[in-house]
């Protein structure tokens, strides 16, 4: 191994190497094109569109108040509410980038939340539970241990999915469907079928706390985003994920261990779901295995698609997916603010899905390409097609 490293190094010091070229600089691309091709363009455009709408129809949307040194307002609500979805979307991005899908994230959220609620509950085991014990502001387990157990439970679920997909060679949709069906049952098993209300105040910090006036959940999202970005862009995993998603066969022929790449993606997705479960249960002060994180898998997929990652896999952007999640919640809160009944929101969401589908359809893409082509004619210097 060391020999090879040294030879590779040696090779790079051959005549045609760095010294003669100096530091390589990527060629300049026109600003408009760079913006248009950026993964962030579409989700940001959608976000801007909704905000512009708000500016006209619901100016109160932008009001931010300071109470007890904390910031309050719709914008803060959006970010705070969107935090769990952003986390799930980050995990889902990696899974979809490998060409897979994870339908079980909602169930994973429920399992993780159930885990936390049960460990807090002082009435573990066969003790007689009195209302007095149940509603105490106390915990049976140290908080760090609770968090750890939460994360471990979700990560384990992800590992299970990854194992079925990579080792069991089961189609991702089918493999994760199993946990989607069984997961909420497992969560109920953990909580013994009860809707657990949480009274232990330190636990609320994750979903309701503030640091420097901003919700804690925001810091968690940013933290996970940085962690994920680091894992994906500062190791070779991101490149491998994209390569496997784009052309699994070529990747195999190149010696990439695609099984481990997939295993990692699903495990990480489970990990993200676990954090989302922690924040959600903390925010809601309860864990209802049937309803917590309901439809999150669908919202997360929507967020990822909005973020420009193709369902067939390949290039991905974590930040774009996170903004996609933000768009979904901005849309949601806007719909509330405008006065649409909360429950009719679903129909509005369907319209959003339709819009996204049309926006990303082949037809739109072809239309854009045509636009691009006329653009290229006027600027032949950026012509990409060159042949020997």
């Amino acid at each position: 191994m060391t020999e090879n490293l040294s030879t590779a190094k040696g090779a790079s010091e051959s005549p045609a190497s760095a010294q003669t070229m100096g530091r390589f600089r990527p060629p300049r691309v026109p600003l408009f094109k760079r913006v248009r091709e950026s993964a962030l363009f579409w989700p940001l455009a959608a976000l801007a569109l909704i905000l512009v709408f708000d500016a006209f129809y619901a100016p109160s949307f932008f009001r931010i108040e300071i109470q007890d040194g904390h910031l309050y307002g719709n914008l803060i609500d959006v970010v705070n509410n969107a935090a769990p979805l952003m986390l799930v979307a980050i995990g889902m991005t990696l899974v979809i980038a490998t060409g897979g899908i994870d339908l079980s994230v909602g169930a994973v959220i429920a399992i993780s939340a159930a885990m936390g609620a049960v460990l807090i509950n002082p009435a573990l085991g066969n003790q007689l539970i009195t209302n007095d014990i149940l509603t105490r502001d106390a915990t049976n387990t140290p908080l760090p241990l609770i968090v750890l157990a939460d994360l471990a439970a979700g990560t384990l679920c992800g590992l299970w999915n990854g194992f079925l997909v990579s080792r069991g060679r089961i189609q991702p949709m089918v493999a994760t469907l199993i946990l989607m069906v069984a997961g909420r049952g497992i969560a109920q098993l953990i909580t013994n079928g009860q809707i657990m209300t949480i009274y232990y105040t330190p636990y609320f910090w994750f979903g309701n706390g503030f640091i420097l006036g901003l919700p804690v959940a925001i810091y968690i999202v940013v933290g996970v985003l940085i962690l994920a970005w680091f894992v994906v862009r500062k190791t070779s995993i991101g490149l491998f994920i994209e390569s496997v998603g784009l052309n699994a066969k070529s990747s195999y022929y190149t010696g990439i261990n695609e099984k481990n790449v997939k295993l990692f993606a699903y495990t990480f997705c489970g990990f993200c779901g676990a954090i989302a479960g922690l924040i959600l249960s903390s925010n809601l002060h309860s864990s209802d295995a049937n309803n917590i994180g309901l439809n999150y898998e669908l919202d997360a997929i929507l967020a990822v698609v909005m973020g420009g990652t193709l369902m067939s896999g390949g290039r991905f952007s974590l930040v774009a997916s996170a903004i996609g999640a933000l768009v979904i919640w901005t849309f949601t809160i806007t719909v509330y603010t405008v006065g649409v009944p909360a429950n009719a929101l679903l129909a509005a969401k369907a319209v959003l899905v339709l819009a996204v589908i049309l926006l990303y359809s082949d037809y739109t893409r072809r239309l854009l390409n045509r636009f691009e082509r006329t653009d290229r004619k006027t600027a032949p210097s950026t012509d990409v097609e060159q042949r020997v």
Partner: protein
Amino acid sequence: MAAVPNLVTMKGITKAFPGVVALEDVDFALRRGEIHALMGENGAGKSTLIKVLTGVEHPDSGSIELEGKPIQVRSPLHSQELGISTVYQEVNLCTNISVAENIMLGREPYRFGSIDWKTMNRSAKTALKRLDIEIDVSRPLAEYSLAIQQMVAIARSLEISGAKILILDEPTSSLDANETALLFDVMRKLKGEGLGIVFITHFLEQVYRIADRITVLRNGKLVGTYDVASLPRLELVAKMLGRSVTELDAMSQVKTQAEQTQAVKPVVQANALGLHGALEPLDLELHRGEVLGLAGLLGSGRTETANLLFGVDAPDSGTLVVKDEAVKKFSPNESLKRGIALCPEDRKAEGVVGELTIRENIILALQARYGWFKFLDKQKQYTIAQEYIQLLGIVAPSPDQLVKNLSGGNQQKVILARWLATNPDVLILDEPTRGIDVGAKAEIQKLVLQLAAQNKSIVFISSELEEVLRISQRIVVLRDHKKAAEFTGTVDDQTVMHAMAGTV
């Protein structure tokens, strides 16, 4: 002879794809009641010609006449309506439904508003009987062998579209001897009924067993159409490869190293390495600094050999020893760590990742070897990519260019660069020069010799005999998934061609 009217006459067919002229002014005629073999190596234009005839592709120029009337084939379905049916090696039927349905669906009989299964099975049986096949037609197609599935496909085309012209595209490549004989019986029977059959195969022996005439294509151009009786086998091979048999050995052979050090242990040693259905047990040795040519016609087992050596497929017999170590785990990942590299035959599907940039494609194998955590940073990536772009003369505006936008030759160089970056000891090149222009071809050949001079071992696979002869020190000839011959040192092309054709 001339009295027999043509079923199909194709005249002056030209078809160009971006960067390649796949067919150039090709004529082709199929008579009633003949079996017409269409021959040529990879890239000769066989499949494009068939695609034009079946409406998958539309010719840029040229005309097609069906029974004297000019036609334009709009789509595959339209060609079926015209009576032109194709049966592929991979049968285009649905294996989960019954044989009878596969034959009759689309024209199934109804009684009282529901499918009349009894009549349908009876009709299907009759249709198969026409081909002398008697099987239980109510069973799912998947339960029958590939040979029977092909018969069913033929029966369907006769039954549903009343085919007059049958195109059999490599139908025998997955059949054993008995099944092939069965298919040939059917072909003769249909020929007797006046059908015209186009037969595409890479088995020379079968052509001589069954075909009446042969049309040879090479590099998208028509070489000629011949009666089988008047074209000896060796001459056919010569025409397919584009060599003239009479002007023998006019070419001098350039070799960097004529000397061989047999005493040294080989880098790669395969003993009776084989995989059922892909390659019969094969002995192979590869020495340091040697270029080993693998010659053989398409489908002779060249790619299968490469895949076994690189661990894409795991062998089920024999042993493989690399650098004095017996290989136990077979996978590209393991081979990569062992210092073996493979530039695969199918550049697009198995080689490049088209949507990634040149830079990413070049560092991909090196990075796979380093693993997850020893990550090459962007600057290092650019340095490596830039180095190989210069070294191999890859023409691209920048290392950030997507590989799918490059020409075939440049894509091939990117794959070569990917593997050279891992500094391998053994380099297996499967058709590295296919479909790329002359200039790039010569560059790659030169590069191979340079690499050998740097003490690397190279397995060079090519359909072009000339380049195999020019750069290999040793040549192993494969035929019908077996080693047919091995030549060391200078050898003339006729000898090798004899070995390839099986007429030694």
